Structure formats: structure tokens, C-alpha cells
């Protein structure tokens, strides 16, 4: 530790990001949805209705997509994801990519008690595909 800083007792104390702290105290949450056979423009959705008295902060979203048939493995596997909150206009987060994508949301997307947040994955590939979507964060 640089001189002039207080003694942090050899690692017993540390500076946490809020997300790191959430995992440390057990209020982290993740939501995953999977569809193992999707045609062009079919969708898969992970959703969460925030309990009364809680607020959910979405910190991270990711997805992956691949062709089911080995013969299509070298083809593009395009997918899109949309984060939405029922009753809230627009999409706080959008992403797309070939094979998948991952993003840290900073600042986090805030979902209030009683609201439903959805991460929708859309298959934009023209072959039978499987897709996973995940949103994660903390709820306090």
C-alpha cells in the first residue's frame, strides 16, 4: 500500500464495486433462457418480475447462438437481444452479433418492484439454431 494510506489490515478490507459486493453478500441474481431449436425470427426470453420491496439492477447481458447441424457450423449465426421493461418505453439495452455478445451495463438498468424485465433473444440465422440468453445483476 502506498505511503500515507491507512492500513487495510492485510486484505481484510477492500474496495468493492457494487456488483462485486452483491455477489459477496448473496444478493446477486442471474436469469438464463435457452431454446435448443429456433427458426429464423423465433425468440427466446428470460424474464423476471421484481418482488415487492426490491429493486433489481441489471449489470450484465450476454447471449450466444449456434447452428444445430454440423453442416452449418461455418455459416453465420446471427442473433439479436433486446432488454425491455413492461410499461417502460423503448429498450434500455440492445445488442446483436455473429455467434453471440456480452456487455456490462454501466450505469445499471434499474427495474423497480412490480415491474417485469425481459431479455428477448431473436434468432437472425437462416438455419435451425440454439440460443442462450442471460441477464444478471443484483437485487436489494
Amino acid at each position, binding site marked *: 500500500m502506498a505511503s500515507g494510506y491507512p492500513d487495510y489490515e492485510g486484505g481484510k478490507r477492500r474496495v468493492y464495486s457494487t456488483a462485486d459486493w452483491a455477489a459477496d453478500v448473496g444478493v446477486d441474481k*442471474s436469469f438464463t433462457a435457452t431454446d435448443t431449436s429456433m427458426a429464423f425470427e423465433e425468440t427466446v*426470453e428470460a424474464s423476471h418480475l421484481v418482488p415487492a420491496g426490491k429493486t433489481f439492477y441489471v449489470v450484465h447481458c450476454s447471449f450466444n447462438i449456434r447452428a444445430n447441424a454440423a453442416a452449418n457450423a461455418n455459416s453465420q449465426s446471427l442473433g439479436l437481444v433486446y432488454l425491455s421493461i413492461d410499461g417502460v418505453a423503448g429498450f434500455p439495452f440492445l445488442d446483436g452479433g455473429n455467434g453471440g455478445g456480452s456487455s456490462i451495463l454501466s450505469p445499471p438498468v434499474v427495474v423497480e418492484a412490480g415491474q417485469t424485465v425481459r431479455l428477448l433473444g431473436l434468432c437472425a440465422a437462416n438455419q435451425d439454431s440454439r440460443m442462450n440468453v442471460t441477464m444478471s445483476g443484483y437485487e436489494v
Partner: protein
Amino acid sequence: MTVRERLARGEFNHMSQALQPDGSLLVTLTKRGDPHVYRLTVLHLYQPDEQVLREETSGGD
């Protein structure tokens, strides 16, 4: 606490959802430090016509 109540109260850390061929949704919940796995099969989750078909708790033995 039923599995549906556990879901409503947020008593979990990880949730997965998988749409089944019959149109129902299989929801799996796990909580860190809890050896159990909680499963719920439901129609129209979070909708006014939601219907719980099946609940199951496993593990922890």
C-alpha cells in the same frame, strides 16, 4: 414455502427458463449455500392466466 412463492419472493440467486414442447415453461431455481434445486412447470408465467402445473424440490440429501 412453495417453489412459486420462492420465485415471487426472489429467494434464489440463479433462475433458468426453458420452453417445453408442450408450451409450458420449466423454471429452475438455485440459491447459493442451499443444496436444493427447485423446479416449477408453469403456463403463462407472470400473466393473469398463469397456471402452475408442477413443483419439485430435489437434492440436499
